[in-house]
């Protein structure tokens, strides 16, 4: 019997058979999304270390933890080694947080702990002054929370790793005895190799968060990761976060890949012929990719799909990166698709933004917000090729992966439009390397023959259903998307059509196989990445369990 052990997965375990393990008490951060990631909050009465470079928002996280805590009846103390309190108050004011009011009510205290620049050192000293202040203030205010910001700055006072360890040890002991829920923020050293203090920080922390702000193509992308959380489960992804006008916001996506709902029943694409080709339509909660050159009819097909869904009484969210809502509705009206009534009936909603307007997190948050508020059964993204403009390939990939994950978890069908550029390459069709997430891929193209340009499409993939790979001709008429009979070239006019068809078929089959191979390669890449992450985690754990073996003294 193992019921004496803490089960980090107890939330999922049902817990009927064994006695419930004493659950770790948690202190909610009240920061939007963070408590979901932390499965309730930070470990109460314990220390959390937040690791992050300057500009990552770690100070803000600490401050918001105190601010929201104070509003919820838990007074707190902020000890800042870096920023003057006035600056902290001003920064908070831009987020609408009135810190002076809380300070007056004795619910918040900000200690200016910046070191004086002209300090002379002679002999031994310790942080006892700091601890005395903290202890005195805690008693006076009944504080429950404490944040020590940029503690690595304070540690610069000490010369030897030994002294640093002693000081950290004293601080750690004091924090444990105080019963305060603590956050220590530190900026990791820029030099390569962990400093001994860093190891110690990590080992004294019951919870370790890492924050990261990367700037790609002038757009900041921020990520938070829970590195460890003793005695508790937690989300294991990198979570995007933004500094919203009211504070931090995180996207709490539950474990990717594990909780997908199975694909649902077949639903109509809005076009009977296409449904036939797809053996009854697409599956609900699946991911459908429509790829093609500009003006091949992707938007028309998407509008057909949306109109059909709305006509069934379902809701569709249309995320557009190229056109305004009015322009999009107007454009498809000429093909006989009336979207306006569905908008008015509250079944169709648009979210249109220029990709460059926001960072990838803001885009994702905006989409998630709309999905939460509108609860659509289907989401259309027009077009994923525009996502590159959010900040490069990686940004586009992350945006789409998160959006896809969110949709899959919620059982939402997602229709992705991908505009291919110039040269038609099937390798491009997968779109931002998301091919393994795609259940159905439809490729739209032009077919030139004898001075005519015809539109053709082909189903390249359709998971979990029989489908025809044959190329079909279609037309965009004022009556919508019309699929012709099996493409036979230009009838009798073409000679040697049979041979051409065979050649064409072989070529397409080869391309389809190449596409499959690419998908497998991506799958492999993802697995390799996961393996790497596991190895890193293992290495980290090894360091934590044997801290004295690693770590080199910083300097004499």
């Amino acid at each position, binding site marked *: 019997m193992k019921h004496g052990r803490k089960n980090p997965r107890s939330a999922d375990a049902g817990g009927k058979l064994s006695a419930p393990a004493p659950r770790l008490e948690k202190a909610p951060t009240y920061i939007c999304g963070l408590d979901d990631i932390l499965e309730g909050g930070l470990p109460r009465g314990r220390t959390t270390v937040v690791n992050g470079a300057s500009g990552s928002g770690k100070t803000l996280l600490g401050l918001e933890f105190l601010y929201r805590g104070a509003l919820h009846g838990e007074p707190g103390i902020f000890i800042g080694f870096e920023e003057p309190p006035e600056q902290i108050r001003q920064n908070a004011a831009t987020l609408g947080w009135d810190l002076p009011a809380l300070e007056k009510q004795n619910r918040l205290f900000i200690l200016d*702990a910046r070191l004086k620049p002209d300090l002379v050192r002679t002999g031994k000293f310790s942080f006892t002054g*700091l601890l005395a*202040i903290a202890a005195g203030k805690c008693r006076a205010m009944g504080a429950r929370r404490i944040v020590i910001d940029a503690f690595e700055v304070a540690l610069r006072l000490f010369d030897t790793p030994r002294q640093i360890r002693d000081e950290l040890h004293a601080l750690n002991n004091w924090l444990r005895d105080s019963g305060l829920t603590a956050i220590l923020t530190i900026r990791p050293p820029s030099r390569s190799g962990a400093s001994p203090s860093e190891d110690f920080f990590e080992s004294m922390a019951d919870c370790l968060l890492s924050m990261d702000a990367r700037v790609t193509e002038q757009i900041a992308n921020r990520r938070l990761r829970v590195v460890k959380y003793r005695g508790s489960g937690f989300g294991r992804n990198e979570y995007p976060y933004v500094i919203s006008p009211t504070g931090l916001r995180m996207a709490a996506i539950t474990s990717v890949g594990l909780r997908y709902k199975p694909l649902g029943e077949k639903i109509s694409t809005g076009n009977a012929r296409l449904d036939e080709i797809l053996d009854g339509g697409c599956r609900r909660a699946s991911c459908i990719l429509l790829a093609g050159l500009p003006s091949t009819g992707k938007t028309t097909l998407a509008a057909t799909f949306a109109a059909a869904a709305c006509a069934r009484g379902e809701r569709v969210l249309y995320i557009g990166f190229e056109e305004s809502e009015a322009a999009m509705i107007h454009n498809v009206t000429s093909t006989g698709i009336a979207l306006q009534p569905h908008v008015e009936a509250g079944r169709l909603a648009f979210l249109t933004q220029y990709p460059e307007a926001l960072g990838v997190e803001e885009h994702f948050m905006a989409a998630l917000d709309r999905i939460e508020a509108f609860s659509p059964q289907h989401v259309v993204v027009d077009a994923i090729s525009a996502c590159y403009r959010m900040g490069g390939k990686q940004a586009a990939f992350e945006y789409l992966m998160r959006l896809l994950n969110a949709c899959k978890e919620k059982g939402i069908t997602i229709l992705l439009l991908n505009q291919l550029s110039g040269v038609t390459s099937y390798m491009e069709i997968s779109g931002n390397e998301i091919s393994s997430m795609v259940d159905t891929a439809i490729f739209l193209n032009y077919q030139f023959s004898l001075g005519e340009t015809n539109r053709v499409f082909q189903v390249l993939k359709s998971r979990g259903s029989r489908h025809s790979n044959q190329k079909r001709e279609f037309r965009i008429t004022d009556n919508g998307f019309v699929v012709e009979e099996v493409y036979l070239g230009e009838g009798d006019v073409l000679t040697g059509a049979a041979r051409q068809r065979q050649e064409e078929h072989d070529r397409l089959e080869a391309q389809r196989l190449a596409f499959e191979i690419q998908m497998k390669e991506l799958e492999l890449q993802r697995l390799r990445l996961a393996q790497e992450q596991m190895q890193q985690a293992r290495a980290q754990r090894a360091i934590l369990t044997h801290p004295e073996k690693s770590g080199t003294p910083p300097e004499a």
Partner: protein
Amino acid sequence: MNTQNTSPGDNRPGGGQPVYRFRLFVAGDEPNSRQARATLERLCATRLRDRCELEVVDVFADYQAAIEHRIIVVPTLLIESPPPVRTIIGSLEDEAQLLAALGLSDGGPRP
């Protein structure tokens, strides 16, 4: 007050010489604080006899004073006079260094 090692000189009352005002922050009776206090008291009884004021503040008893003066580490010595205010942290075990900080190193103002 232990006034051991009384050395000659410096026994002239203040006239013309600056008066030192010290505020020493200690943490109860912990060793570093004790040493700093002893060093300082010795200095006040010898080199700075009759021209030195020493106030000792225990941060545990008066944390407000510690907040006011941004006392993060202990012991901390504030030299409040003569200006400018200077801050010395540590147990002051190196008396020469202390004297240097006070501008009293050898060759400094001796009678």
